[in-house]
């Protein structure tokens, strides 16, 4: 029964896998930082279609209507956009941090709603998104 208490040993391939994941994470993080230029407009997408565009520099509050008659309260203040209140079951859109950089998003999956920063300098990712 001695062999029963032996633990599995880490293999070289495991370490290679871990390093590979770390490299991918670091690269995508750096790429995101590099791409992060300040945006100019707040775009609202419902089910993938653009429904409204608001200026980012103008502080205001908007009431958005998503899928299943859901409501999300969008607040634009100090050049940042955030959802402060919503009636979706998980409220994850409210928990997501305020966005201000080009390409950043807040999404509410239950309402199929995406708030996205655009404008400023067009970057590669926007071309892909559109």
């Amino acid at each position: 029964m001695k062999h029963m208490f032996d633990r599995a040993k880490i293999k070289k391939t495991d370490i290679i896998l871990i390093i590979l994941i770390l490299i991918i994470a670091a690269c995508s993080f750096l790429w995101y930082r590099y791409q992060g230029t300040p945006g100019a407009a707040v775009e609202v997408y419902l089910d993938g279609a653009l429904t409204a565009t608001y200026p980012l520099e103008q502080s205001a509050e908007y009431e958005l209507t998503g899928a299943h008659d859901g409501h999300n309260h969008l607040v634009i203040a100090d050049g940042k956009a955030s959802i402060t209140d919503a009636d979706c079951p998980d409220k994850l859109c409210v928990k997501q941090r305020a966005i201000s950089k080009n390409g950043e998003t807040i999404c509410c999956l239950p309402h199929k709603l995406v708030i996205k920063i655009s404008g400023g300098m067009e970057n590669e990712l926007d071309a892909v998104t559109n």
Partner: protein
Amino acid sequence: MSDNDNIINDHSIEKSTSGKVAFKGLLLAFALILSYVESLIPFYFGIPGAKLGLANLAVVLCLYLFSAGTAITVNILRIILSGFLFGNMFSILYSLAGALFSFVIMLGLKKSGKFSIYGVSVAGGVFHNVGQIMIAAWVVQTVSIVFYLPVLLMAGLLTGLLIGIIASRIMPYVSQFKERIK
């Protein structure tokens, strides 16, 4: 690793149907408890549907103690039950997508024989999150959600590694228990 193979190839439990059912039921209950603990932790990555993935520990154990079939059955039952208990229909959809994707990867790495339980578990954690983000991107029809990828990769890596370490530590004891129910 050859010692572990001995444990895996030991099909003594297959002789006793009731013992097998009870043991797999215990693993499912274990997975559900992990899902419950996870629902209590207010841990949030900034992307919808992403969680720590603690329940993967039960799936990894199933994969190494029993067969791929048992592991996938426990996995799917765990998601449906925990979805009804602690989540909603959305969480079932995302969990299912992430779980199936990560399971296929884990099974592939295990079958290749080139990775130990640590590598398999890390891949499971990482691809669980990758699967979920892909479904999220598809639902909202936006690829910019992929911005959250670095955070999700790191989170999946850390929980995967932790689960691999825990699984390798408790495997010898659980398989000893498995030996007893002949």
